[in-house]
């Protein structure tokens, strides 16, 4: 054995430095993939403080790191967001310092529903079509399970939360089947755990649970992906033990949630669904127990009371008979008396009635009636004649009193009355007329004294020029003809032709006296 290792022969392979190899790979990749289009779902997106955009494109198996430099960003059709299905366009390059290859994306366009989600939808539809989600497949959960099987990670908050909540409500036997809750081992392990719990025999070395909880905390859609795998969904659907799923947060829904018998929003909620609250049940049972005792005691007491009440109301038998006998005696005695009395009274009435019932009695009444009738008939004719005579006398008497003398006397008296009244009327009328006449004359003489004609009598004259009264010498000079009026008449004075006679129309002053009447 050699003590010193001989260096291995390098052979003909050229030796690269890391940078040389890195450069060669870069050239190869850039040469081969200088212009590519790639379709995928956008994963994590980071906008660096430098302004460059880093994001991942992924499908169900691989991830491609992408970069878009700050200056290239305006060229993108859409800024990538997580979950978006896109087609990116650019050239492949490497990042030698981290031994990474990546796409420098110069264009990003939306490609449709995310491939993962689309795949999940497809699975969901297929399982639904098989009827795995049907409500009638759901099993009822036991009210109080003896053993609860939990399929989850043996470490971490999820199992702690479940155990805590169980302890608070109703401590139970719990069997934990540890599984990977993410990564490629997750789905097969979870499926196996569900099947494994079902395979246990009740009362065996390992107690078979009567309720299963499959739980996992929150995470990204990729983290939870194991619970979207078909084998997990099928194992849950096949479980004969009722199963509660509690995967992720309330907003996450995975395939197992659809096939589980109940879906809990969180692991703690799964524990709440799994067991009732022990203290409440103890209280319920205590109350039922006291009601049970009270009900049975009340039942007996109530019956006793009724018996004694009824016994008090029950009359003595001899009392019943005595009363009846007394009443019988009383009435039977009265029966004899009543009967005898009734018969003798009847006999008496009969003999009385029969005694006075004779034909002579009837005949007498008949004769009397006939007598009365003849009497009235005899008086009928004279009465009629007398009445007629009386009426006739009264008529003659009244007719005698009816004579024209009376009427004539009334007429002549009426005529005299009319004549006397007419005379008086004439006298009165005449007197009134005279009075009015005298007044009229007095007023007229007053009027005359106030008129200008009276002034004329005192020696004044009225001058008219061309028919109008002339008051000034100037006006008189202008007038074509003048006329003087004196008390005893009018005189035209020359000034050329004599004025055409005008219709006398005194103007000065034509006193308008109105009517005094």
């Amino acid at each position, binding site marked *: 054995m050699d003590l010193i290792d001989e260096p291995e022969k390098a052979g003909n392979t050229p030796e690269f430095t890391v940078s040389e190899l890195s450069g060669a790979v870069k050239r190869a990749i850039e040469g081969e993939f200088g212009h590519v289009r790639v379709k995928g779902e956008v994963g994590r997106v980071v906008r660096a403080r430098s302004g460059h955009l880093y994001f991942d494109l992924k499908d169900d198996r691989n991830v491609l790191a992408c970069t878009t430099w700050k200056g290239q960003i305006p060229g993108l059709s859409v800024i990538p967001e997580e979950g978006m299905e896109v087609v990116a366009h650019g050239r492949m390059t490497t990042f030698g310092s981290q031994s990474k290859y990546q796409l420098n994306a110069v264009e990003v366009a939306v490609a449709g529903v995310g491939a993962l989600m689309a795949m999940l939808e497809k699975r969901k539809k297929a399982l639904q079509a098989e009827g795995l989600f049907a409500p009638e497949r759901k099993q009822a959960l*036991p*009210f*109080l399970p*003896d053993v609860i099987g939990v399929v989850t990670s*043996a*470490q*971490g908050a999820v*199992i*702690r939360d479940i*155990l805590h909540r*169980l*302890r608070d409500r*109703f*401590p*139970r*036997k*719990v*069997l*934990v*089947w*540890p599984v990977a809750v993410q990564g490629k081992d997750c789905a097969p*392990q979870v499926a*196996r755990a569900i099947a*494994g719990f079902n395979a246990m025999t009740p009362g065996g070395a*390992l107690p078979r649970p009567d309720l299963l909880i499959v739980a996992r905390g929150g995470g990204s859609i990729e983290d939870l992906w194991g619970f979207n795998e078909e084998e997990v969904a099928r194992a849950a659907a096949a479980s004969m033990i009722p199963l509660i799923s509690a995967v992720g947060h309330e907003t996450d829904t995975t395939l197992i949630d659809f096939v589980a018998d109940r879906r809990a929003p969180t692991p703690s909620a799964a524990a709440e669904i799994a067991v009732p609250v*022990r203290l409440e*049940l*103890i209280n*319920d*049972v205590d109350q*039922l*127990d006291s*009601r*049970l005792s009270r*009900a*049975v005691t*009340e*039942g*007996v007491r*109530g*019956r006793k009371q009724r018996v004694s009440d009824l016994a008090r109301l029950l009359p003595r038998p001899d009392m019943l008979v005595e009363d009846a006998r007394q009443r019988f005696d009383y009435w039977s005695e009265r029966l004899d008396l009543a009967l005898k009395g009734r018969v003798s009274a009847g006999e008496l009435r009969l003999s009385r009635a029969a005694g006075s019932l004779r034909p002579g009695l009837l005949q007498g009444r008949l004769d009397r009636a006939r007598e009365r009738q003849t009497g009235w008939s005899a008086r009928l004719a004279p009465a009629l004649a007398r009445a007629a005579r009386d009426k006739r006398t009264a008529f003659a008497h009244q007719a005698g009193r009816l004579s024209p003398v009376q009427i004539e006397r009334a007429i002549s008296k009426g005529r005299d009355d009319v004549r006397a009244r007419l005379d008086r009327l004439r006298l009165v009328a005449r007197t009134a007329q005279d009075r009015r006449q005298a007044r009229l004359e007095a007023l007229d003489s007053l009027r005359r004294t106030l008129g200008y004609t009276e002034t004329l009598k005192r020696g004044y004259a009225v001058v008219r020029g061309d028919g109008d009264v002339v008051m000034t010498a100037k006006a008189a000079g202008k007038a074509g003809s003048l006329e003087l009026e004196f008390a005893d008449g009018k005189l035209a004075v020359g000034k050329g032709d004599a004025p055409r006679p005008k219709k006398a129309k005194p103007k000065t002053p034509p006193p308008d006296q109105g009517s005094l009447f």
Partner: protein
Amino acid sequence: MSDRPVAEMSFEDALRELEEVVGKLERGEVPLDESIALYERGAKLRKRCEAKLQEAEEKVAKLTLDGDGTPTGTEPLDAG
């Protein structure tokens, strides 16, 4: 009244029957001799319920699995 042995009943069934028994007795709709029998049954159901409620012992175990993922036994869970 069910003739099922009380000792075989689950907590839930025992509780439900206890409620029925109490209800019947409270309504006074059973003859006297039957009500005594009902009371006795109720007392047994109550004992059963209480016994099940006493079984509130927490026992948590983790399954140990072999290389194939087949359970081989249990060990105490250290959930931290």
